[in-house]
């Protein structure tokens, strides 16, 4: 599984990255987490509001920070 955290470096983006790492660690799912900070890359994924979370190419969350439980649920689908 490939998880991308999209964000330009604001506080919310860092929070989302950390929560995602924690969710991956706690669920024990094999996943690589990539932080995408390049604006053009973010735009290519069709995201206008950061932070956003992309799992295997699908945008599953954008414009907000999700709770640990919610992210766990998203990556377990």
């Amino acid at each position, binding site marked *: 599984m490939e998880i991308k955290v999209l964000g330009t470096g604001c506080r919310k983006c860092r929070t989302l990255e950390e929560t995602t790492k924690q969710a991956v660690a706690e669920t024990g799912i094999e996943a690589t987490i990539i932080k995408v900070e390049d604006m053009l890359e973010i735009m290519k994924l*069709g995201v206008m509001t950061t932070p956003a979370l992309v799992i295997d190419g699908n945008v599953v969350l954008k414009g907000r920070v999700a709770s640990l439980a919610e992210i766990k649920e998203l990556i377990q*689908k």
Partner: protein
Amino acid sequence: MKHLISTNTKTNWSLPAILLPVWLILYFNLQRIADFIIDRLFQMKPSTHLTESIRFFVFEVPKVMLLLVLIIFIVGVIRSYFSAEKTRKLLEGKSLFTGNVMAAFLGIVTPFCSCSAIPLFLGFVEAGIPIGVTFSFLIAAPLVNEVALVLLVGLFGWKVALIYVSTGLLIAIVAGWIIGKLRLEKYVEEWVFKVKTNQEEAEDMKIPFSQRIKTGFETVQEILGKIWIYILIGIAVGAGAHGYVPEDLMGSILGKGNWYSVPLAILVGVPMYSNAAGIIPIVSVLIEKGVSLGTALAFMMSVIALSLPEIIILKKVLKWPLILSFVAIVASGILVIGFIFNLVL
């Protein structure tokens, strides 16, 4: 976007239905509760400056907090019906003036964080939305918001809050319209127009209402968690000034009589960066110390609407002539508003 919907939704109607009566009882008995704490519990001597200051604080903090919780919750639920993508769709193909008005109002209800300003700008440009309309959105979004509204109502009353919101919208509309009329598109970096994105289709509206209520609670938690300290400081300062006679310290420099007070306030305010919650404590000090309302509002607006960090972010997509026009137009708008209120009020 079907993954967006969380199935784990325990929160539903019942929680707000229980909390609302509790809220109402608390809110309408605050004066009594405050009096009870001051007179009975602490048995403080009435009518001294210290007692009245503390009474003000004990009354005002829960009042503002309760108002914030209610309004942020309602706005949070309303915002869950909007998104940057939907706003973009609504603004596509709108003529200049209509587009500016719509963009300013959508700026209030669209969930937006200033760190998303660039992707949002690129997304709007790509959809063919004129930059003047985009600017109306970018000016209104931070300037007019629920936190500013509640704090202004709580500390200065309805009149000031309404003045702030309506003039904020007016500045966003007019400034965006002027930027559009000036045809400044050539000062947008060329690569911006080449950006191609996978446009997400408008999202489904089938998010269950219980999820929206949950979003409302999360919004309250998130925003209050960030701003409570500013509110405590703001009201403490207000309480200090409430009980004691305000000195007319700044009144002589930034009072009504001095024509240069408004431009001075804007010059100081533009480079500063803060949100509504952070700046209102300072504004309450200014007003208590004799600064006129027009000057204080101008200061507040220039801090929130314009800032150095924002200019640096915008520099990535805009060239200097456009950035400088944007700053100059918004600052002039604030200047006019400041002068008018110093004259009228």
